[in-house]
C-alpha cells in the first residue's frame, strides 16, 4: 500500500531513441490507475521502469517515499502480471504461486497458508495440482493474478493482462479485477491499449502517445474534456468527428456545417470536434444543422450509427434506432453544441 510517483522520468535507448519523455504522474495510495495509449507509446516501458525491469535514464521513481531507481526489482515490493502471464510451464499451479514466496525463504506453512488463501479468492482450489498447459486462458490469467496476490505487494502492476482472453471473458474479468482491487485495498497500475478497459476500470486514466503523457484524469473528465486532439480521438467509440474549420467572428465554418462557438477562441483555423452522440436526428430550433449523405448504416439494436458525408467531411452520427434510413439517403441532422470541442490547428490543444 503505497503511492507511486514518476518525477521527470525519461527512458532513452540511444541518443536519438527516447521512448518515454519527461513523464510525471503521481499515483495515489489504493488508486486504480490505468496507463493507456496506442502500441509503442511508451506505456509498457513506463511500467517496466517501475517494476525494475528497465533502467531509468533520467528522473526518479518513488514508491511511497522511497526512491527506487537503484533498488533491485525483487526489493521494490511490487508484483507484476504479464500479458503472457509468464507462468512457469513446468511447475504446477501451486508451485507457480509458491515460487515468489520460496524466493523470500518463507516458511513452508506460511507459504501454504498464503497460496491456499489466494487460490480461494480466485477460485483455483480445484486446479492447484495442474500444470498451466492444462488450464483455460481465464484460469491461467487467474494463476498469474494469484502469483501476484500471494506476495501482498505494495503495488500491483498489470501489463495488458486481458488481451489474451476472448471478448466475453474479458468483460467478466474486468469486473473481477475491480472487485479484487476493492478487496485488496492496494495500488493498481494497469497498462492497456484498450480505451474501453481504461474507461471502465480506472479510477484515473493516464493517456500516453509517442512517449509523452497527454492527459491524466478521471474517465468522465477525459471523455468530456479531452486536452488535445489525440486524446479526443483515442477515447470513445466510435471516435469523435473531426472536421477542419475556420473561425470567423465566433462562428466556425466547415465544408458542410456552420456553428456558433459557445465561447470565443483566439485561433483562426482549427479542427471542430464533436462526438457521434452529439449528432442526432433531433433538430433543435435555431441550433446548428447539417445535411448528411449516408454511406453506411449500422444498426446495433439500442443504437443506430450513420456514416456519411457532410460537405467534404466524413461524419458519424448516432440517431434514434427507429429512424428509417437507407444508404444513399440524404438526411437532416442536428448538432448538440454542449459537446462541442475546438482544437488549435498548430498545437492541437483543445481551446474549447
Amino acid at each position, binding site marked *: 500500500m503505497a503511492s507511486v510517483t514518476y518525477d521527470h522520468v525519461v527512458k532513452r535507448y540511444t541518443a536519438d531513441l527516447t521512448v518515454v519523455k519527461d513523464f510525471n504522474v503521481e499515483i495515489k495510495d489504493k488508486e486504480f490507475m490505468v496507463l493507456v495509449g496506442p502500441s509503442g507509446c511508451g506505456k509498457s516501458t513506463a511500467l517496466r521502469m517501475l517494476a525494475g525491469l528497465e533502467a531509468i535514464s533520467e528522473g526518479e521513481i518513488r514508491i511511497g517515499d522511497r526512491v527506487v531507481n537503484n533498488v533491485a526489482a525483487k526489493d521494490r515490493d511490487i508484483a507484476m502480471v504479464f*500479458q503472457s502471464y509468464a507462468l512457469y510451464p513446468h511447475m504446477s499451479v501451486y508451485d507457480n504461486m509458491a515460487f515468489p514466496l520460496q*524466493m523470500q525463504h518463507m516458511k513452508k506453512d506460511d507459504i501454504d497458508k498464503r497460496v491456499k488463501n489466494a487460490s480461494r479468492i480466485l477460485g483455483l482450489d480445484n486446479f492447484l495440482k495442474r500444470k498451466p498447459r492444462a488450464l483455460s486462458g481465464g484460469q491461467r490469467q487467474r494463476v498469474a493474478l494469484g502469483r501476484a496476490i500471494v506476495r501482498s505487494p505494495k503495488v500491483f502492476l498489470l501489463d495488458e493482462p486481458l488481451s489474451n482472453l476472448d471478448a466475453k471473458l474479458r468483460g467478466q474479468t474486468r469486473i473481477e479485477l475491480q472487485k479484487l482491487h476493492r478487496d485488496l485495498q492496494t495500488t493498481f497500475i494497469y497498462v492497456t491499449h484498450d480505451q474501453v478497459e481504461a474507461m471502465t476500470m480506472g479510477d484515473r486514466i493516464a493517456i500516453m502517445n509517442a512517449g509523452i503523457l497527454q492527459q491524466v484524469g478521471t474517465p468522465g473528465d477525459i471523455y468530456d474534456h479531452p486536452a488535445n486532439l489525440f486524446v479526443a480521438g483515442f477515447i470513445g467509440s466510435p471516435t469523435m468527428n473531426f472536421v477542419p474549420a475556420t473561425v470567423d467572428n465566433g462562428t466556425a465554418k466547415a465544408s458542410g456545417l456552420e456553428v456558433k462557438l459557445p465561447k470565443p477562441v483566439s485561433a483562426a483555423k482549427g479542427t471542430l470536434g464533436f462526438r457521434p452522440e452529439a449528432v442526432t436526428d433531433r433538430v433543435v430550433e435555431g441550433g446548428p444543422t447539417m445535411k448528411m449523405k449516408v454511406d453506411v448504416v449500422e444498426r446495433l439494436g439500442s443504437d443506430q450509427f450513420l456514416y456519411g458525408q457532410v460537405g467534404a467531411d466524413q461524419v458519424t452520427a448516432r440517431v434514434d434506432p427507429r429512424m428509417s434510413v437507407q444508404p444513399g439517403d440524404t438526411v437532416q441532422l442536428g448538432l448538440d453544441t454542449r459537446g462541442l470541442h475546438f482544437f488549435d490547428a498548430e498545437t492541437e490543444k483543445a481551446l474549447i
Partner: protein
Amino acid sequence: MTVAVASPTSSTTARFSPRWLSDRLGGLVLHVVVIGLTVAWMVPTIGLLITSFRQSADISNSGWWTALSPPFKFTLDNYSQMFAASNLGQSLFNSFMISIPATIIPVTLAAFAAYAFAWMKFPGRDWIFLALVGLLAVPLQLTFIPVTTEFVKLGLTPQHLTAIGLPPFIPLWLAHAGYGLPFSIYLLSNFFRALPSDLFESAEIDGAGTLTVFFRIVLPLSVPAIASLVIFQFLWVWNDLLVALIYVGGVATVAPVTVTLVNLVGSYGQNYQLLTAAAFFSMIVPLVVFLSLQRYFVRGILAGSVKG
C-alpha cells in the same frame, strides 16, 4: 470456387469411376514404395544380423539370404569366439568411461555458456558467438598435431596419468569436450533464447537469482534440447574412432569399442564371422540410448538448427 464445390460431389457419386480406381491404385503404389524403400534401407543391417548367426564356413561360401531357407543352421559361435578373442569387456568399460564424462562435461559447460550468450550482456558477446559458429566448420584434423604435442608436454598421456593415479581417459574427456562445445553452445543458445523473456522478468521480480533461474527455470524448460544434445554428443563420442585413435591410439587398456573393432578388422582380415558379431555388439549401446531418448531428439535439434 467451382473446383471447391465440384470435388466433393465427384468423390461421393463416382465411386467406381476410373478416378476412384486410380486414387486407390495411387494409394497402393505409395504404400508399396514407402515400405519397399524402408525395407531396402534395412537390408544391409538385416544381412549383417543374419550373417552374425551363421557358421564361418557358410559365410564365405554363400550369401546371407541362403540362410533364410531350410535347413536352418544358426549358431552363437561367432559371439562366443569374439568375446574370447578380444578384450571387448575392457573396451566396453572404456567406452563408458570415455563417453559419459565426455558427454556430461561439454553439455554442462555449454549450458552455462549458452545461458550467458542468450540472457546476459557482455562486451564482444555477439562476436564470440559468431566465432563459435565459424568453428563448427573447422576440421578436427587441423588440431591433432599441436594438441598431441601439448598433451605429451603436459603429461596428459594415458601412461603418465595411470602412473600418477589419475584416470587415463582425461585427455579424451577434454578433447571431446573442446570439439563438442561449439555445436553444443550453438544449439543450446538458440533454444534458451527462444524461451519467453517474460519468464525471466517474472522470476527477477519474484526475487530469483541467476543460479535459481538457471537451475529451476532454464534447465527444466530445456529438457528436449538438452536430451537431444546428450544423444548427439554421446553417440558422437561413443562412435568416435578418429579422436580416440589419435590421442590414445596404441594403448589397449584405454581403447574404446570402436578402436578394438577396427583392430579386429585389421588382425582378422577376412574372418567375417567375428566382425559381424563385434559390429552388432558395438551397436547395442548407441541404439538403446537413441531409442530411449528419440522422442526428445527431433524437438531438440529443430529448436537449434531450424528456426524462422
